[in-house]
């Protein structure tokens, strides 16, 4: 069977995702998961989340996918110990040092390679498998099915794809637009001192620069304008059978920072799709009447992105 993994940005969101058909959840560890603080979990709350998910017979993965600044190393070591003690079913991480540390110190804790690592080829997948990863997510920018299939065939690790959600203009983990644009010094209560916020990879929120309106110009002349860097959302409904048949194990929905209603609708839609496929794989066809639900989901994401225009 395959696994539908939904984002959990709050305990309420986790409950709703499970009610709508999620098999597993992923949730950010406070200060270390590349999302706004409001959708990350602190120690006590993460334990509650684990207990809730396990009580429902679902899995829960901790997201710890920042590339760590040197000053974050001690915080990371404490947090990963907590995550392990709290009973997370796996840890999603990106930093090669972090992966190596976890493998060495927590040999029983499954490691999922983050989308931040932009795995685009079989050799890269094998690199992470060699480091001890048990799940590898392929790059969201990898569009050709045959490239994903080649990665699947090259590793024993389970493969995960993002099945739906917003997609960045740049490859994940290789974008420095936000921190080029803006960084600010703020008090960090975890460190007890001021520190920089605003880095894409290392910390803080992405400013969604690539979703904004740009002008393309040459020698001062405007050539084009609009949301030039915005890429269409990923919609995996049609490709679902291809992924399942090549052996993809986990289907992840993007959107930890999105409203709970978005998570509910997206989870419900993809639950229906997976169930429809397994009812009769050969007859799988995306029903016309799902289009309205899909449009609502896409609109919710566009609205979320537009909120950043004025910032």
């Amino acid at each position, binding site marked *: 069977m395959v696994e539908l993994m939904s984002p959990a940005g709050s305990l309420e969101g986790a409950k709703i995702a499970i009610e709508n058909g999620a098999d597993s959840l992923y949730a950010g560890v406070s200060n270390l998961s590349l999302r706004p603080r409001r959708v990350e979990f602190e120690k006590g709350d993460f334990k509650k989340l684990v207990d809730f998910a396990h009580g429902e017979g679902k899995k829960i993965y901790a997201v710890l996918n920042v590339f760590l600044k040197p000053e*974050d190393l001690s915080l990371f070591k404490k947090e990963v110990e907590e995550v392990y003690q709290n009973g997370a079913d796996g840890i999603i991480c990106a930093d090669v040092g*972090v992966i190596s540390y976890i493998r060495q110190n927590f040999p029983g804790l499954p490691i999922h390679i983050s989308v931040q690592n932009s795995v685009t080829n079989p050799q890269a997948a094998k690199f992470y498998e060699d480091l001890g990863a048990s799940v590898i997510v392929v790059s969201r920018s990898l569009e050709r099915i045959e490239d994903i299939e080649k990665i699947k065939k090259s590793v024993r690790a389970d493969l995960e794809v993002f099945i739906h959600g917003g997609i960045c203009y740049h*490859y994940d983990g290789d974008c420095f637009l936000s921190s080029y644009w803006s960084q600010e010094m703020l008090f960090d209560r975890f460190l007890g001192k001021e520190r920089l916020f605003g880095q894409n*990879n290392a910390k803080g929120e992405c400013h969604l*620069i690539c979703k904004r309106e740009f002008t393309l110009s*040459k020698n001062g002349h405007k050539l084009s304008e609009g949301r030039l*860097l915005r890429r269409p959302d990923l919609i995996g409904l049609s490709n679902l059978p291809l992924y399942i048949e090549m052996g993809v194990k986990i289907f992840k929905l993007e959107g930890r920072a999105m409203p709970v209603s978005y998570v509910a609708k997206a989870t419900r839609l993809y639950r229906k799709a997976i169930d429809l496929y397994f009812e009769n794989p050969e007859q799988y066809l995306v029903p016309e009447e799902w289009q309205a639900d899909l449009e609502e989901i896409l609109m919710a994401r566009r609205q979320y992105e537009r909120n950043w225009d004025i910032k």
Partner: protein
Amino acid sequence: MGSRIELAATVGTSEIMNEIDTDGFDSFYLGNPFCLKIRGNLSSDLEALKVTIRFLKKVRKRVYLTTPVIPTASDFKLIGNLLQLGVSENVDGVEVHDVGALRLAKEYPLKIHLSVFGNVYNQLSALKFHSLGVKRIVPSLELTLAEIAELKAVPALELEISVHGKLPLGIASACLLGTSLNSKNEKSINACHQACLEENFLILDGLKIHTKGTATFTGADLVMVEHLPLILNQGYRHFRVEGLWETAQNLSKIGQIYKEAFEEASQGKSDPKKNLDKVLEITPEVCNGWYFGRSGREYVSTIKSQIPSTK
């Protein structure tokens, strides 16, 4: 770290290589890793690459090859050929950007450099990459000079510091210039018109960013010439001028300016204002990247109050 200073330049094409005055530089990274379709790209014309390597060896320069930045499975034949050429021509090293390319490069007797896209942010990952055969790294762009200093905890690892040029802000899977400038005709979109060799800017609220098709670069050039004494005092000896999108004439001048500035700084008789003025004649918009803990586009000057950065 050795005591001899090395100043390297990245040169992408045979056209630039044929025109450049190599005197200012000690070594060269050959090839443009961002797009193999660029006219004259040394990474995709192995015969021209071989000729260039032999020329540079003859004039006693060190030579490093570079590999595609985000390779898919189909790029690995070329990467293998590049590595083989590197061995047969006895180059001084190869730069990898992707862990898959790193995994393959380890099979060849070549010194491996890991680029900024290796996302080395801390000593844990520096140590791990060193244990995997990497001899030199370019620390993440988002690190401050103080944070880069933490990486010296791995003494056998060479650290390379970018001191000048357009810094990469991200890589995309599709060519923006192809889709924005070409007609809607599919054949025309797929044809490459080499628009990336011209000065195209993306402008967002007054901020200019260079777009080079699949890659995005800073609008302002990184300029560290006035801060060389500081960097040298921190013990670094390997430096890079990012020359990919520079004219041969300008790159030659920049090489000379930095060569002289390094010589002066190492003798303790630096004239930062003179050197900065020379650079500003070539590149009027400047930034310091992330070295001083500000937004990447800002410029910090100790000698001038008015610097025309893009902020």
